[in-house]
């Protein structure tokens, strides 16, 4: 089946080459980081996690959102999703690939990464994150591949795939829950020390992932002979609507608790993000952009008139995706580190090489995504031909 990813149009090869070029540049910068150390990034003693870990967190959400296709199809027998479940699973595969790469590029000593397996430490949440992420990658690769191959051969998937599919549903929830536990179990980090962090992560995931999938579906329809379907896109849109409303609701819950209780250790982070603290507020415009994007999206999505209009829906999905990306990919991690536990305000801004490495990882993810989607779409085209 892999051969399908090697047969494509000029445009396909052009896109893949462009991605490879970005990967090449990113890898070059990574080699520089490897020889100099993480000092080429904007991270510091006070803000010891930055852009990489933030992207990792955001993408775990995108990966987990595959469950929003798998669950209706396999548990509720919602047939329409049968056509596009594979897209969700392959999106999960590429997202988890990026997550793992982001962890690797964030390590100070990546060649020692296997110490996590050689000296397994069950009391560390990172140990569990390693297990759930790799497990989820494995599940989606196997399930996606088997189901697509069966579809290609016009036979039912082997019976042993079914239990794996059922396992993959709670597993999807687990990857984002464990990722939230990385942060929310830390004493002295008031911004993250909230039991709602995992639910909030899941809500934003179920908004960001499906909104990205809608955009991908629209692109696929435009570029290929495979139509993911109007109904499918509309159902996804409803999922995005609930997801983004939940996410904003959870954010408001946080805002209430933090500002009504007025406990400085919790409130100051929120202040830093939304109004600035002691004259520092590099993220303030970003955070308000995020809030406005999410609110705009809610207006466009709740209203059936605008939701059913696909070009408008595409705009709404872009709003959801970038709104949640700023929220998680920029604010969530820096926001937890500023102010520091000693209440110093040392801000974080990613450096150019850091951003290039990040783009390299994203390009790798898109390369995997394009190849997998190419395979899936080619199979669908073969069958309808």
């Amino acid at each position, binding site marked *: 089946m892999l051969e399908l990813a090697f047969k494509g149009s000029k445009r396909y090869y052009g896109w893949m080459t462009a991605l490879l070029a970005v990967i090449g540049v990113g890898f070059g910068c990574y080699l520089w980081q490897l020889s*100099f*150390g*993480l*000092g080429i*990034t*904007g*991270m*510091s*003693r*006070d803000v*010891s*996690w930055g852009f990489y870990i933030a992207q990792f967190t955001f993408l775990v959400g995108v990966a987990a959102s595959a469950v929003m296709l798998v669950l209706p199809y396999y548990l509720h027998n919602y047939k329409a999703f049968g056509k596009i479940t594979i897209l969700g699973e392959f999106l999960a595969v590429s997202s988890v690939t990026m997550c793992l790469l982001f*962890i690797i590029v*964030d*390590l*100070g*000593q*990546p060649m*020692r*990464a296997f*110490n*996590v*397996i*050689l*000296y*397994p*430490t*069950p*009391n*560390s*949440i*990172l*140990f569990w994150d*390693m*297990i759930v992420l790799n497990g989820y990658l494995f599940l989606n690769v196997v399930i996606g591949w088997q189901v697509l191959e069966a579809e290609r051969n016009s036979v039912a998937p082997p019976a042993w795939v079914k239990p794996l599919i059922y396992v993959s549903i709670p597993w999807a929830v687990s990857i984002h829950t464990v990722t939230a536990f*990385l*942060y929310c179990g*830390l*004493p*002295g*980090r008031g911004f993250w020390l909230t039991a709602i962090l995992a639910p909030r992560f899941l809500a934003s995931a179920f908004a960001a992932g499906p909104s990205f999938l809608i955009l991908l579906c629209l692109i696929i329809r435009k570029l290929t002979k495979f139509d993911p379907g109007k109904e499918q896109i509309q159902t996804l849109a409803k999922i995005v609507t609930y997801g983004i409303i939940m996410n904003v609701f959870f954010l408001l819950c946080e805002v209430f608790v933090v500002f009504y209780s007025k406990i*400085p*250790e919790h409130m100051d982070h929120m202040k830093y993000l939304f109004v600035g603290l002691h004259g520092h507020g590099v993220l303030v415009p970003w955070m308000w952009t995020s809030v406005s994007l999410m609110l705009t999206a809610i207006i466009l999505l709740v209203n059936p008139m605008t939701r059913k209009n696909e070009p408008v829906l595409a705009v709404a999905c872009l709003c959801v995706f970038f709104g949640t990306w700023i929220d998680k990919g920029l604010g969530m991690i820096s926001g*937890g*580190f500023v102010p*520091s*536990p*000693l*209440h*110093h305000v040392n801000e974080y801004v990613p450096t150019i090489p850091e951003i290039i490495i990040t783009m390299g990882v994203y390009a790798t993810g898109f390369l995997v995504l394009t190849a997998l989607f190419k395979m899936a779409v080619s199979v669908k085209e073969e069958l309808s031909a």
Partner: protein
Amino acid sequence: MENSRRTFLKIAGISALGLSAKPVFNAFAVSEEHGGKKEAKVLPKKGALTAKRWALVIDTTKFKSAKDLEPIIEACHKIHNIPVFENKRHEIKWIWEEEFKHAFPDLENEHINDRIKSLPFLVLCNQCQDAPCVRACPTKATFKQEDGIVAMDFHRCIGCRFCMAACPYGSRSFNFRDPRPFIKETNKKFPTRMKGVVEKCNFCSELLAEGKQPACVEASGGALIFGDLEDPESEVRKLLKSNYTIRRKTALGTGPSIYYIV
């Protein structure tokens, strides 16, 4: 042919997975009582200072200005090969000074007396009884010794910096670049670090093993007192009994081993 190659790959894949999972299963097996192979016990060196739980009392009444703290910080940073960087982002420090409001942000008091307000406080790793960094470390590179010291294995650390996020006292530093060219004078008796690993105060375990007091205590002229918290006859216990002391962020339940007489 095709089929046998496929079978071979399958079996090889499953075996590889099984082999890499073995240490993981071992971890769970050993944690059960009866999984017990006996581990070799390391006996303390002859003449070494030992304790059930080492603790430090900092008598801040003996300090007047930042000048009094300098030799203490200098002594620690010198013997532990701490580099000096111009870029503040890359800063490494094991023991340093903070204003009261930063050392004790939860004890904020705008009408605090002038002495405390202007007095610099020494801060360092609290050698917590229940250390969040030990809990967070995914490789046991940060671990608790039998004498209560939270120690580090610089050779095992993968540089994930989970411990830095976990520490509520900002006591940990990361080697953002190779520190060696920035060490003024290398002390051959203590290892230098490489880039990409975390480090922090180790309560001078290496000196205790030789029967010596920690460097900061030696350099403090009696303002810092070191001893066994579990020994009712120790000097630290006597001081704690006769003086009012505070510890940093006790509400978090970490159980710091550094006490401040204020």
